[in-house]
């Protein structure tokens, strides 16, 4: 018996050792396994392990631990104890990738990673993506023109991208001095990334900023939605296939501002009530390891308004606008395995404008003054068509656990056909073949240090120059929840089509960004501080021929620098309340277009601040969202064209400070009724609640004798509507958004 026991104990072999990191720190909880047997152990808090086995012969000893690369070693078990020490390499598992990626990619370079409901519930913003972005640091409160004016840049320096490809006309057509809302509903997108600078080499042709929109994948469920309001009514269907592998949807809405304009007096006289038909169609198909998405939207809009003519005052300018816009986007994202991924994007858009303006007397009788220098071109016709076809391919390859390499290219074919008929007929045609290639690498130097380095090279056939735009961004995790990031990049943008048509010898405009920020993310809280310096070169400058016609060169330049703060507290400090505060200080001057010297542009205010609050009251099934935005008055100028055909500043000033309080109320009667068939929301919103006198800017008559304030078309904007949804229980959205 004794003999037997000794044989058994002799048969047991002790296997021990340690599991550690490179720097010698222990790894606890690692699974040490004698492969294909039950034998093994778990490393303790000091990284040590010990177990015994009765197995004999050649075996693999494997080590696995979360967050580290798998490791194994072959051992031969005979009778003596075995000691093995392992050093494991850190692995980028799924979590650390997203956490790290968040440090260097565009998602973190922008403060704004907002979901659709975040956007839809900003008080007074009327669920318009761009209006919500104006509550973010770095943006200006420019209401008289469409577009996002970022860090001393113009609205055209911010470009919008849907699933990687550029959107040419993201805003509804509008008249001069009246801003327009965006064409795209926030509910089309699962994520909205607003980068105010230093973004990835994947994106180009935007000097200042990129609004990167990623469309939603398959819907959770089939549903039917409807909206009813005095301004707009419409319906939508989303159908999810039974196997949950594909979906399709259509929507239509009709906008008619007739009733609204009857109830709320507008300052310009609308002789033709703005109306619009908007329809879209989409399908999405899940592939093996990816998705194909198609989205197509058609919008047709009409309207006509008349305003006093600033140069004659007796007369009115009656402007008639007709616009047709068709946008289509096909994208295919696929994970090819073996570390390869690709993203393919195809898009086509056409935008057709027809504008007609005539000078009328107070009885709306057309007038013509072909001899008057300053009135001869008041009667005009503009027919314009702008097409953009795009192809974009991005390939991602994970080279190792620490390096992801990305390479891609895009091709744009841009067509402009326009005829401007005033005293004479002026055709304006342009064809441009634009090609870009880019490459970048995400390098995870260590758990804390991440770099994204890349570059982009572009060629435009009309400019006939190749540019090279390097981009670099380095981020360092100062703690588990905070990061310090610095980025640098050169950005090029083609001049506007009209400028290129007049002066085809123009080159690229250029901006160089230097950005540093610190960001802290705690549960539901974000705190961010950012400084930047931006250098502008080769901006387009106007060389006037006369009051109406000009040619252009690249002699302009400028700079912008500033400090920005942002903090958000999503229902952490105050129950059921989400709020964010942003502040931006901007110092910028530029010489471009008709600016004779470097001056603060008329679209840039020095101080901008916003407070967005959203509070939900579960007891009353309703929410109150209140937003306050403030900006110091922007400068305005009268540029006089002198005898030497140069512009000079004859008058200037500063508009009064801008205040806006926006309020929206939502009420969800079906909330909490688990079996409710119909989910509905009643929504009401008002902008400029306090009725402050908002002046964006001033216009001057041609000789400078008359100065007119540019203001919103009405003191306040109201909206009320009912949104209904069948088929999908939106209570969860409501909880998500409001809890």
């Amino acid at each position, binding site marked *: 018996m004794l003999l037997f026991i000794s044989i058994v104990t002799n048969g047991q072999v002790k296997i021990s050792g340690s599991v550690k990191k490179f720097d010698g720190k222990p790894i606890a909880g690692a*699974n040490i396994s004698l492969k294909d047997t039950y034998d093994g152990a778990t490393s303790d808090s000091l990284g040590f392990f010990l177990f015994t086995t009765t197995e004999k012969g050649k075996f693999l000893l494997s080590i696995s631990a979360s967050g580290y690369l798998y490791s194994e070693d072959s051992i031969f078990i005979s009778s003596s104890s075995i000691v093995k020490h392992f050093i494991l390499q850190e692995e980028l598992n799924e979590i650390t990738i997203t956490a790290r990626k968040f440090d260097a990619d565009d998602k973190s370079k922008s403060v704004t990673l907002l979901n659709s409901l975040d956007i839809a519930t900003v008080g007074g913003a009327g669920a318009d993506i761009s209006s919500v972005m104006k509550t973010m640091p770095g943006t200006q409160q420019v209401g008289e023109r469409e577009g996002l004016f970022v860090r001393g840049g113009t609205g055209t320096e911010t470009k919008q991208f849907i699933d990687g490809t550029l959107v040419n006309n993201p805003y509804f057509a509008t008249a001069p001095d009246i801003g327009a809302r965006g064409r795209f509903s926030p509910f089309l997108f699962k994520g909205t990334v607003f980068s105010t600078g230093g973004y990835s080499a994947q994106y180009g042709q935007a000097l200042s900023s990129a609004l990167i929109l990623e469309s939603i994948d398959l819907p959770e469920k089939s549903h039917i939605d409807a909206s009813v309001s005095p301004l707009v009514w419409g319906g939508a269907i989303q159908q999810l296939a039974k196997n949950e592998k594909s979906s399709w949807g259509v929507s239509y809405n009709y906008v008619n501002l007739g009733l609204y304009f009857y109830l709320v007096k507008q300052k310009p006289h609308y002789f033709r009530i703005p109306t619009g038909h908007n329809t879209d169609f989409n399908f999405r198909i899940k592939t093996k390891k990816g998705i194909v998405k198609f989205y197509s939207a058609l919008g047709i809009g009409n309207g006509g308004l008349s305003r006093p003519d600033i140069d004659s005052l007796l007369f009115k300018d009656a402007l008639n606008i007709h616009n047709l816009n068709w946008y289509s986007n096909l994208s295919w994202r696929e994970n090819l395995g073996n570390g390869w991924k690709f993203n393919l994007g195809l898009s086509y858009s056409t935008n057709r404008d027809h504008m007609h303006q005539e000078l009328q007397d107070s009885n709306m009788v057309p007038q013509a003054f072909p001899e008057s220098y300053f009135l001869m071109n008041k009667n005009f016709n503009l027919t314009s068509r702008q097409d953009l076809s795009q192809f974009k391919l991005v390939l991602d390859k994970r080279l190792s656990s620490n390096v992801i390499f990305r390479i891609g290219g895009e091709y744009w074919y841009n067509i402009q056909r326009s005829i401007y008929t005033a005293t004479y007929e002026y055709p304006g045609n342009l064809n441009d073949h634009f090609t870009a290639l880019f490459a970048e690498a995400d390098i995870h130097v260590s758990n804390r240090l991440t770099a994204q380095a890349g570059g982009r090279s572009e060629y435009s056939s009309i400019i006939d120059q190749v540019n090279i735009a390097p981009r670099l961004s380095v981020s360092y995790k100062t703690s588990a929840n905070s990061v310090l990031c610095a980025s640098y990049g050169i950005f090029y943008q083609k001049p506007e089509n009209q400028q290129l048509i007049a002066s085809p010898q123009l080159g690229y405009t250029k901006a160089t960004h230097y950005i540093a920020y610190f960001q802290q993310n705690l*549960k539901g809280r974000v705190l961010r501080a950012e400084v930047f310096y931006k250098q502008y070169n080769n901006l387009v400058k106007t060389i006037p021929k006369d009051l109406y016609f000009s040619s252009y060169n690249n002699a302009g330049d400028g700079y912008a620098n500033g400090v920005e703060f942002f903090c958000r507290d*999503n229902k952490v400090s105050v129950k059921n309340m989400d709020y964010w505060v942003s502040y931006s200080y901007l110092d910028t001057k530029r010489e471009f277009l008709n600016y004779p010297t470097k001056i603060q542009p008329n679209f840039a205010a020095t101080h901008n601040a916003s407070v967005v609050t959203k509070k939900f009251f579960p007891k009353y099934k309703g929410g109150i969202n209140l937003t306050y935005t403030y900006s110091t008055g922007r400068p305005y100028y009268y540029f006089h064209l002198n005898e030497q055909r140069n512009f000079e500043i004859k008058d200037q000033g500063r508009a009064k400070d801008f205040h806006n309080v926006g309020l929206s109320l939502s009420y969800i009667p079906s909330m909490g009724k688990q079996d409710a068939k119909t989910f509905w929301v009643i929504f009401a919103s008002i902008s400029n609640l306090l009725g402050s006198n908002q002046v964006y800017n001033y216009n001057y008559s041609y000789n400078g004798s008359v100065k007119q304030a540019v203001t919103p078309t009405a003191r306040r904007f109201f909206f009320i509507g009912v949104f209904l949804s069948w088929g999908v229980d939106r209570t969860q959205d409501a909880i*998500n958004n409001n809890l």
Partner: protein
Amino acid sequence: MKGKFRIISLLTFSLLCFFSLISQAQDDKFSKAMQKNLKALDSAKTTAEYIAVSNSFERIGDAEKTSWLPYYYAALALITPAWEDKTINADANSVKVKALIEKASKIEDNVEIYALRNMIATQQMLIEPSIRWANYGVEASTALKKGLAMDPENPRLNYLKGSSIFYTPTQFGGGKDKAKPVLQKAVELYSKEQPKPLYPAWGKEIAASLLAQCN
């Protein structure tokens, strides 16, 4: 259709019996190791102990390759401490848990595994409920729905359903009153349950105590 299914089930059953006879020796080792670790899982208190048990189960699973049970318990052993121990990073933990769930479901995708899916998604949701509801809350409830579609009488899924209603605020369609009938059903199902050896049997006590809180 039904008849055909019955024949197949009978066939499978007899085949299983046949194989189990052959591999009885091996099975003996397997069930002994499983029982030993199930005891360890029962008595585990610290997170380190739970991790050690999980690792043991995983080793058994890797060696056997044919039973979903070791992976099931390996995952359960990592989920259990994460309800209490707030120092556990639920996201990092979920990567490991979901890998184990994947391994188990590749062998046999059954109703019990949906309970794991529900729990791990719930844990991820609880990190930041207000923000994560849309993703992980839906993931959790989808797992529950799919599991209950497979077996509406599974006591653990009924308990998880009841518990989810129990902890959802009344205004949002939750609360004790609504949870009560579901928990009552779960407790009833637990009392009728006769789990096969080594099969999941947990949840009876906690379901009863939650039901008691409803009164």
